[in-house]
């Protein structure tokens, strides 16, 4: 049996101020799967995502990446396997030029200069942003920033891509480009999002979180069509499923 790309075993997390953010969450994601993490604001999605690269350490329970437990010691190495794309690209693009941002990961990983260049260029090419590589990041449009942010994660050639609200602030074209890009990836993808239409298009599997607990874990079609479930946890049935027209 191949090891799951990502596994959580009864992970609990309480913030220093006492706020119980995650309560016994367990799930497994196989290599290459695309899973959406959905839930109302404050449900615990972002907190959960931060456990996946060791930014937060579980109060109890285990996080395993590719079968290896994520601990303080193993975190630096495992971070190469998990590429994070944050909600606000401005937080993620902090170098003077796009190229340097994308090269930041490989440089820190200690790769040789030639390899760094090659990885950075390849990542930019993959997201279709090679033409802006010498520009400063704040000069990009929201869609371009998002694409570059994804490139910064891709440059480390991770096994898993974790994304927090990737389609927020994108115009329809940017959003369409993002959806197409996400569908084209072969990586394991874990996407936390409010964009339920995106979920339908990109992720065959969905995990519902509410109040720090894992409420449901199953096929997208099944769960998102369950109106009662959706409404009970601060969500709703997306239009794309409500008005399915046979083509």
């Amino acid at each position, binding site marked *: 049996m191949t090891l799951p790309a990502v596994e959580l075993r009864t992970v609990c997390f309480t913030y220093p101020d006492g706020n119980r953010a995650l309560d016994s969450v367990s799930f497994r994601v196989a290599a290459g799967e695309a899973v959406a993490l959905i839930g109302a604001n404050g449900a615990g999605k972002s907190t959960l995502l*931060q456990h996946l*690269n060791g*930014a937060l350490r579980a109060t109890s329970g285990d996080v395993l990446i590719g079968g290896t437990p994520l601990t303080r010691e193993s975190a*630096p190495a495992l*971070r*190469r396997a*998990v*590429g*994070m794309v*944050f909600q*606000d690209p*401005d*937080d*993620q693009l*902090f*170098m*003077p*030029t796009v190229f*340097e941002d994308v*090269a*930041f*990961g490989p*440089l*820190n*990983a200690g790769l040789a*200069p030639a390899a*760094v260049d090659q990885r950075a260029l390849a990542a930019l090419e993959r997201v279709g942003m090679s033409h802006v590589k010498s520009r*400063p*990041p*704040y000069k990009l449009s929201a869609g371009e920033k998002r694409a570059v942010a994804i490139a*910064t*994660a891709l440059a*480390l050639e991770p096994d898993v891509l974790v994304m927090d609200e990737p389609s927020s602030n994108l115009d329809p074209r940017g959003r369409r480009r993002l959806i197409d890009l996400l569908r084209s990836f072969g990586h394991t993808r874990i996407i936390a999002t409010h964009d339920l239409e995106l979920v339908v298009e990109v992720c065959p599997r969905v995990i519902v979180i509410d109040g720090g607990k894992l409420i449901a874990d199953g096929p997208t079609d099944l769960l998102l069509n369950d109106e009662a479930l959706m409404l009970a946890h601060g969500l709703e049935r997306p239009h794309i499923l409500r008005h399915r027209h046979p083509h």
Partner: protein
Amino acid sequence: MSQGGWSDVGRMDELGRLATPVHRVDARAKLVTTGLFIVAVMSVSRFEVAALTPFFLYPFALLSLGRIPPGYLFKKILVAAPFALAVGLFNPLFDRETAAVLGPWSVSGGWLSFASILLRFALTVGAALVLVACTGMHRLCAGLEQLGLPRVLAVQLLFLYRYLFAVADEGARMLRSAELRSAGPRPLRVRVYGSLVGHLLLRSLDRAERVYRAMQARGFDGEIRTLQRPRLRGTDLLFVCGWLAFFAAARCWNLAGLLGTLLMKGAS
């Protein structure tokens, strides 16, 4: 303190990313030359006015070759002039002894030194602005680091520069919303000010935390590593030596005076 809009920084940044021969000169060469320029200008004695004029060639030449709009820079120099003007203006008041005679008029040492102060100001400030406008912050910081600036500070400059726009945007938005809810664009009351700026500070702290997490996610371990830097070329050294020779000449001989004497002799 500066009143210039932070959006102005954006304009300078754009200028810094042009691709002219001047822009291509290594930042280190330009830094060293500008430094020598400033020292040369400032070492001219206090009553010299005409002797300062040849020095204008340096900023003028870089301006033109670097395709930097002169009016734009001139405005910035004007905006920054008040302090020098204010203090310099005392000179004519205190030093009334005649130091020069122009036909029927006698000019006091005070006026001469005042004029000298103004010219110096224009020259040194102009040179600094031209330096930034034809190098760009990124290359400038890289050059500074290569010349010995501690990495902590070089990184600090780049980060500050990077987030300047974001934070200033936030600040401007908060200020505007405060103005809209009060009787007009009056300066804020202290209480409101404390709260507004306090909020801005908290948001900045939050942002810093998020940026750190993004850095950590990509393997940051406290050491900022950089890509390879370009090497110095022959043209860069030529740049420095050429200008150094000119500055030395302008400093040792009063070129303007010579030119004037030549003209007068020719005229008579």
